[in-house]
C-alpha cells in the first residue's frame, strides 16, 4: 500500500525534488466546515459535493453510507516532506499536503491521483505542534457520525503552523501511523536546522521551486461558477505586475494572468460562434409610498400606452465603457447576431443624442417580455411593518395589480419568485412557456437601515439560471445566471456618502444560499451578486442632484433646450460612478426622461408638478453589468408620468438578452484542452524565444484626428508558449507615448504561432497640445517583454503634421503664418503678434458674410472643414451653402473646444459665473489676455447678430440655445477645480453679451 502511495506522490514531483518521507493523515475539519459536513452525513443534501468529486449516487440508505465513506475519503491527506537541492548543493525543504482524487478509467478501475493542496516551506518560522488526541475533544468538534466512527484509534493531532507567511492558516491533522510520524518529524527537523543555519537576518530565501506545485495557478475559468463581474471587464494590464525595461516585475504572476485571458478569449470564440438564445426582459422599479394599487399599471408593466409609443427611445449602441483592452474585444460588438441588427448598425449618429425621438414605431414593443422583474419600495409605511412582518397581503395586492396590467396577456405569465423585506418587494414573472428554462431560483435580502437590522432600507434579490432550449449542437446548454437586486438606499440630498456605503454594504452582504443576513462564514456555500452572467440593479437609489434647487427647476422648465444631459452631469449617482465611489462597472442607459421624484398632490408644486420642498431628482434607476458571454442590449428606459398614485413615478426598462446556447460538457472539454496546451509555461525547461517583426515601423504622416494604423507580428520561434507584455521605459510610466496605442498590450503565443499587434497613432486634442510645440519627427521605442525571456525593442516613428487645433491662443497670434507653412521655431515677438488668432477670425468673418441666415447654425451638426492649417482659402458658398455654413460653424466650435485652455481663463470662471449684470460681465473681460478678449468680442458679436436675424425661431429662444451650446466650450470645467460651476451660471455669463 505505502509503496504505491509513495509512487503516486513521487509522480507529482519533478526531477529537481526528492521525496524524503510520506505520512498518511486525516484533515481535522475547521469549525466552519463542521456544519456542512455534519449535515451532509445526516441528510443527503449535496453540500459535501464541493469536496468530493465522485459522490453522485441517488439518495437512499446505500448512497448515504457510501457518502459517509466518501466524506472520510475527502479528509484523507498525505503529508510529504520534499527536499529541493539546487545546483549549488543548497537544500531546501517543504511539507506538501497532498489530496487524493479518485479517477475512474474507461475500464472501470479506480485509481487515486494526488494534487498538492498546500505547501509549507520549512523555514525558521515553520513549526509543528503535536498533541495526544483526546477522543472527547474530537467528538465535540465534529459531531457527525461519520467522524465518530473514524476516530476509533486516532493517536496524535499534528498542527502545521506556516510561521512567516500570514496568508496561510495553520492546518491540523490526525495521525495514526506513529512509527512513520517519527521519521517525518526527524526529517522536518533536519531541514529546519539547515534552513536556520543558512538564514541571513532580514531575508527570506527564495522558494520559487514550489510554485508550479501550488494548484491555485489554475485559471478560475475552470470553475463552474460565472466569472466575477467586477473582473470581467477589467483590462488585463490593470492586473499585471509593475514592470519596466530592465525590471521585469513578477513574471510568474503575469504569465498566469495573461494565460487566463488567453483561455477566456479562446472560449469566447466558442461562445461567439454558437447559436444565441434570445431572452426579452422587462424591468420596473416603483416607490409606491405606502399606497395600495389604485391605477392601471399597464404602461409600466407592459409599456403599452399611447403616450409612450411616441417616446420610444432609439436603440442605442450601448457598449460597455470598459471594453476589455487587448485580447477580448467588446462582446457586444463582436457578437455576430447583434451586429446583424440593422438598427444598431445605423445608430452612429443616434447614439450621440439619445433624446432625439425616432419616428419609427417600436417594433420590438409588441414582442412580449419573457421575464418581467418588478421592484417595489415603501410597500408599507406603517410602524408595525418595520418589524419584519411576514404578511403577504401587500405583495398579493401588487402581484394582482401587475397581472391586471398585463391585461389579456396575464394568462401567459406566472409568478416565478418573489422576495420581500418590509417595504421592498421583488416580483419575478415568467412566461409559462419558458418556465422550465428557469432553474435554481434563489432569493436573498439584506437590511441596510438602522444598524442594518431594520428593514426600512436595504435590498432584496433574486438569482436564477436560464438554460436555453437544447439544440442539436448543444444537448445540455450551459445555463446563464441572472441576478436582480432591488434596493432602497438612504434618503436626503446630503446622504450621498451613506448611499455609496449602502451600495457596498448590500453588494457584500446580499448572498444567495448563504447563512443569512450576517453573511456566510468564509468557505460556506453562497453566491454573491457578482457571480452572474448578468446583474441588474434597480430601485429607489435615492441619489439627488448637486445643483441648487432653483437651477434644477430652471433647467427643467427651459423649453428652448433639452437640459436633461446637462443636469445629469450633476446627478450624484453619475458622479459616484465617474469617481468610482459606487456602482463602478455598472452601465446605465442614457436617461432622456424627466426626474421621477418628487410629486405630491396637494402640496405646493412648480409648473412641472414637482414638490417645492424637495429638489427634483432621478431617484429611481435601473443599471446593469453584462458578462463577456451574455449580450445585454437595452431597448427602452422610461419614466411613466401617467401613473400618479405615489410621490415617485415608476421607471421601466426593456432589455434583449442574448444567451449563447453552448453545450456544457463541450465547453468544459474545450477549457481543459486549452489549459493543457498552455499550463506548463512556468516550469518548462526551455526558455521562450520570440521574434518581433518589423523591428522598426514608419507610420508616415501623423495627423490630428486621423488615426493611422500598422501592425507588427510577434512570432513564437521557440518550443514553449510565450507570454508577452509591453513594459514602460521607467517604473510607473506609460508603455506608449500619448499619441500611440498598442493593441493588445499583452498576450500569449503558442509555439509556431504568431499574433498581430496593431499600432495606432491617433492624435487627440490632448496629445496635439503637446505635439504642436515639439519636434515634427516623432519617434518612440516600445519595449516588449517576454516572461522569462528577453526584452525586444520596437521603434515606431512618424512625421507629425502640426495643426492650429489644440494650439494656444497666445501661440497662434505669434505664428508668422498658417501653422504648416510657419517655422515653429520662429515665433513673432510679442509686439508684432496678431491681435487675435487669424484662424478664429477667418471662420467668424466667413460666417458673418455667408452664414447668418442659417437658422440652426451651430445647433445642427456639420462635418468640420480643415483649411486652417494650410492657409488655403475657405470654400466659396455655392449651391450647398447651408451644409457648408454648418461645417464652418462646427469647425469653429471644434477649434474652440480643442484649445489647451478654455477661452475664459479658468481662474476667472467662478467670478464670471457670479457676474450679476452686463456691466459686471464686461468688467471681467479686463482680466482676459488681450487676444482672448478679441476672440470673445468677435464671437459674441457673431452670436448676438445671429439672434437678431428674422428666422423661424424667436430670438430669445435662440439666445438660450446658443448659450447652452457654447457654455461648456468657452467655460470648460477645470478638472483641478473642486467645485463645478452650474451650467445655468455659465450660460448667463454668455447671455450678458449675446442677448
Amino acid at each position, binding site marked *: 500500500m505505502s509503496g504505491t502511495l509513495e509512487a503516486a506522490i513521487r509522480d507529482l514531483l519533478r526531477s529537481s525534488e526528492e521525496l524524503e518521507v510520506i505520512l498518511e493523515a486525516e484533515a481535522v475539519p475547521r469549525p466552519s466546515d463542521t456544519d456542512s459536513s455534519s449535515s451532509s452525513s445526516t441528510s443527503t443534501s449535496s453540500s459535501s459535493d464541493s469536496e468530493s468529486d465522485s459522490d453522485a449516487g441517488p439518495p437512499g440508505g446505500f448512497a448515504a453510507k457510501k457518502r459517509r465513506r466518501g466524506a472520510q475519503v475527502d479528509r484523507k491527506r498525505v503529508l510529504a516532506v520534499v527536499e529541493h537541492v539546487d545546483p549549488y548543493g543548497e537544500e531546501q525543504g517543504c511539507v506538501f499536503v497532498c489530496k487524493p482524487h479518485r479517477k475512474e478509467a474507461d475500464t472501470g478501475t479506480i485509481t487515486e491521483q494526488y494534487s498538492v493542496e498546500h505547501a509549507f516551506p520549512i523555514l525558521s518560522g515553520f513549526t509543528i505542534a503535536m498533541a495526544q488526541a483526546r477522543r472527547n475533544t474530537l467528538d465535540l468538534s465534529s459531531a457527525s457520525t461519520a467522524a465518530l466512527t473514524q476516530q476509533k484509534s486516532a493517536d496524535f493531532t499534528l498542527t502545521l503552523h506556516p510561521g512567516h507567511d500570514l*496568508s496561510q492558516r495553520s492546518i491540523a491533522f490526525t495521525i495514526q501511523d506513529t512509527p512513520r510520524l517519527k521519521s517525518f518529524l526527524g526529517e522536518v527537523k533536519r531541514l529546519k536546522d539547515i534552513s536556520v543555519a543558512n538564514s541571513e537576518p532580514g531575508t*527570506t530565501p527564495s522558494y520559487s521551486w514550489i510554485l508550479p506545485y501550488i494548484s491555485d495557478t489554475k485559471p478560475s475559468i475552470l470553475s463552474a461558477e460565472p466569472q466575477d463581474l467586477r473582473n470581467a471587464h477589467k483590462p488585463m494590464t490593470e492586473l499585471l505586475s509593475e*514592470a519596466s525595461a530592465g525590471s521585469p516585475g513578477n513574471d*510568474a*504572476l503575469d504569465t498566469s494572468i495573461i494565460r487566463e485571458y488567453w483561455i477566456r478569449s479562446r472560449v469566447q470564440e466558442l461562445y461567439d460562434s454558437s447559436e444565441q438564445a434570445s431572452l426579452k426582459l422587462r424591468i420596473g422599479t416603483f416607490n409606491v409610498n405606502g399606497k395600495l394599487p389604485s391605477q392601471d399599471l399597464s404602461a409600466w408593466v407592459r409599456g403599452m400606452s399611447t403616450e409612450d409609443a411616441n417616446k420610444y427611445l432609439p436603440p442605442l449602441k450601448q457598449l460597455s465603457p470598459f471594453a476589455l483592452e487587448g485580447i477580448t474585444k467588446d462582446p457586444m460588438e463582436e457578437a455576430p447576431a447583434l451586429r446583424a441588427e440593422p438598427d444598431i448598425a445605423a445608430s452612429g449618429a443616434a447614439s450621440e443624442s439619445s433624446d432625439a425621438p425616432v419616428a419609427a414605431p417600436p417594433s420590438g414593443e409588441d414582442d412580449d417580455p419573457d421575464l418581467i422583474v418588478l421592484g417595489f419600495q415603501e410597500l408599507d409605511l406603517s410602524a408595525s411593518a418595520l418589524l419584519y412582518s411576514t404578511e403577504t397581503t401587500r405583495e398579493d395586492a401588487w402581484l394582482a395589480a401587475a397581472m391586471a396590467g398585463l391585461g389579456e396577456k396575464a394568462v401567459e405569465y406566472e409568478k416565478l419568485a418573489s422576495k420581500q423585506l418590509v417595504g421592498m418587494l421583488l416580483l419575478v414573472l415568467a412566461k409559462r412557456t419558458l418556465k422550465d428554462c428557469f432553474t435554481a431560483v434563489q432569493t436573498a435580502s439584506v437590511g441596510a437601515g438602522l444598524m442594518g437590522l431594520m428593514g426600512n432600507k436595504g435590498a432584496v434579490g433574486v438569482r436564477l439560471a436560464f438554460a436555453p432550449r437544447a439544440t442539436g449542437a448543444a444537448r445540455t446548454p450551459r445555463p446563464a445566471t441572472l441576478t436582480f437586486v432591488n434596493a432602497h438606499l438612504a434618503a436626503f440630498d446630503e446622504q450621498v456618502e451613506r448611499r455609496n456605503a449602502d451600495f457596498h454594504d448590500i453588494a457584500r452582504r446580499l448572498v444567495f444560499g448563504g447563512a443569512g443576513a450576517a453573511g456566510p462564514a468564509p468557505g460556506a456555500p453562497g453566491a454573491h451578486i457578482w457571480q452572474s452572467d448578468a446583474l441588474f440593479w434597480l430601485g429607489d437609489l435615492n441619489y439627488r442632484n448637486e445643483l441648487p434647487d432653483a437651477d434644477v427647476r430652471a433647467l427643467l422648465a427651459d423649453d428652448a433646450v433639452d437640459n436633461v444631459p446637462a443636469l445629469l452631469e450633476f446627478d450624484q449617482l453619475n458622479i459616484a460612478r465617474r469617481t468610482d465611489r459606487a456602482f463602478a462597472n455598472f452601465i446605465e442607459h442614457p436617461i432622456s426622461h424627466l426626474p421621477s421624484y418628487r410629486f405630491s398632490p396637494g402640496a405646493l408644486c412648480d409648473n412641472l408638478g414637482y414638490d417645492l420642498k424637495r429638489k427634483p431628482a432621478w431617484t429611481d434607476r435601473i443599471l446593469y453589468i453584462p458578462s463577456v458571454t451574455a449580450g445585454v442590449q437595452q431597448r427602452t428606459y422610461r419614466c411613466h408620468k401617467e401613473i400618479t398614485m405615489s410621490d415617485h413615478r415608476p421607471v421601466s426598462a426593456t432589455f434583449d438578452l442574448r444567451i449563447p446556447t453552448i453545450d456544457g460538457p463541450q465547453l468544459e472539454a474545450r477549457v481543459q484542452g486549452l489549459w493543457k496546451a498552455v499550463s506548463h509555461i*512556468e516550469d518548462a525547461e526551455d526558455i521562450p524565444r520570440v521574434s518581433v517583426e518589423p*523591428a522598426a515601423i514608419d507610420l508616415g504622416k501623423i495627423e490630428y484626428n486621423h488615426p493611422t494604423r500598422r501592425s507588427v507580428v510577434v512570432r513564437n520561434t521557440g518550443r514553449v508558449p510565450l507570454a508577452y507584455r509591453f513594459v514602460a521605459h521607467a517604473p510607473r510610466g506609460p508603455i506608449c507615448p500619448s499619441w500611440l496605442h498598442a493593441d493588445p498590450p499583452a498576450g500569449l503565443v503558442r509555439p509556431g504561432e504568431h499574433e498581430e499587434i496593431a499600432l495606432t497613432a491617433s492624435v487627440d486634442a490632448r496629445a496635439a497640445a503637446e505635439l504642436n510645440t515639439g519636434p515634427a519627427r516623432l519617434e518612440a*521605442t516600445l519595449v516588449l517583454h517576454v516572461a522569462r525571456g528577453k526584452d*525586444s525593442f520596437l*521603434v515606431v516613428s512618424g512625421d507629425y503634421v502640426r495643426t492650429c487645433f489644440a494650439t494656444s491662443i497666445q501661440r497662434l497670434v505669434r505664428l508668422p503664418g498658417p501653422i504648416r507653412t510657419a517655422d515653429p521655431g520662429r515665433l513673432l515677438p510679442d509686439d508684432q503678434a496678431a491681435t487675435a488668432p487669424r484662424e478664429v477670425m477667418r471662420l467668424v468673418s466667413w460666417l458673418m458674410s455667408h452664414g447668418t441666415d442659417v437658422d440652426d447654425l451651430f445647433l445642427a451638426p456639420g462635418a468640420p472643414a480643415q483649411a486652417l492649417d494650410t492657409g488655403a482659402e475657405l470654400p466659396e458658398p455655392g449651391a450647398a451653402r447651408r451644409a457648408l455654413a454648418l461645417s464652418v460653424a462646427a469647425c469653429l466650435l471644434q477649434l474652440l473646444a480643442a484649445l489647451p485652455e478654455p477661452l475664459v481663463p479658468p481662474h476667472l470662471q467662478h467670478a464670471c459665473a457670479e457676474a450679476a449684470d452686463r456691466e459686471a460681465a464686461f468688467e471681467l473681460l479686463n482680466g482676459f489676455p488681450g487676444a482672448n478678449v478679441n476672440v470673445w468680442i468677435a464671437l459674441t458679436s457673431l452670436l448676438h447678430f445671429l439672434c437678431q436675424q428674422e428666422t423661424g425661431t424667436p430670438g430669445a429662444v435662440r439666445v438660450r440655445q446658443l448659450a447652452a451650446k457654447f457654455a461648456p466650450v468657452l467655460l470648460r470645467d477645470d478638472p483641478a477645480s473642486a467645485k463645478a460651476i452650474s451650467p445655468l451660471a455659465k450660460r448667463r455669463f454668455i447671455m450678458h453679451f449675446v442677448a
Partner: protein
Amino acid sequence: MSKQFQFKLVLLGESAVGKSSLVLRFVKDQFDDYRESTIGAAFLTQTVALEDGTSVKFEIWDTAGQERYKSLAPMYYRNANCAVVVYDITQSASLEKARSWIRELQRQADPSIIIALCGNKSDLSARRQVSQEEAQKYAEEEGLMWGETSAKSGEGVNEIFTEIAKKLPKNAPPSARAGGARAGAPRGGVDLNKQAAAQGGQNEPCNC
C-alpha cells in the same frame, strides 16, 4: 555549505563588438560565427563558483548596441552592480564609444558600480588597432578593471567574469544584494520572481 550572492550585470558597447557572443560563451560555452544584431535586451543568468566556497550568480542584461536604442540603456544599467563595457580591438572607434559609455556610467549609474573594460576579438590581433598599453593605461586612469577576451576561442572570458565576481562586495546579505536587480522582488514569503532564475542553474539556456 556554499553561500550564493546575486548581482546584476549589464553589457554595454558599440554595435558588433561581440557583447552577445561574449555572453553566449560565458553562459553556454558556445560560439556562433553569424549572430544577428540584438534588438532589445536579453536576460540570462550564470553562476561563478569562487575558491573561497562562495558562488556568485550574475543576472546578465545583454543590451542592444545600436545607437537608436541608446536612450533605453539607462533602464538596464539602473541598479546594476557591475557593467562590462566591450570594445573591439580591431576597431579603434569602438574604444571611443566605450569611453563614452564609461563616462555615462560614471555620471549616471549607481556610484558603487564596478566597471570592467573588455577588449574583445583578441583572436584577430593581426588586425589590431587598439594596443593593450593604450587600453590598460586608460583603465588604470579611470580605476576600471581591464582584460582582453576572445568570444570565439573562449580566451579570457571566464577570467574577466571571475575577476568581477571576486571584486564584488559580499558583506551584504546575498538576496538583498540583488534587490534592485528585479523590481518588485522579495516582499517576504515565497519569491515568485526568481522562478526562472532558480531552476536553471549552471546550464541556463540562452534566451535570445
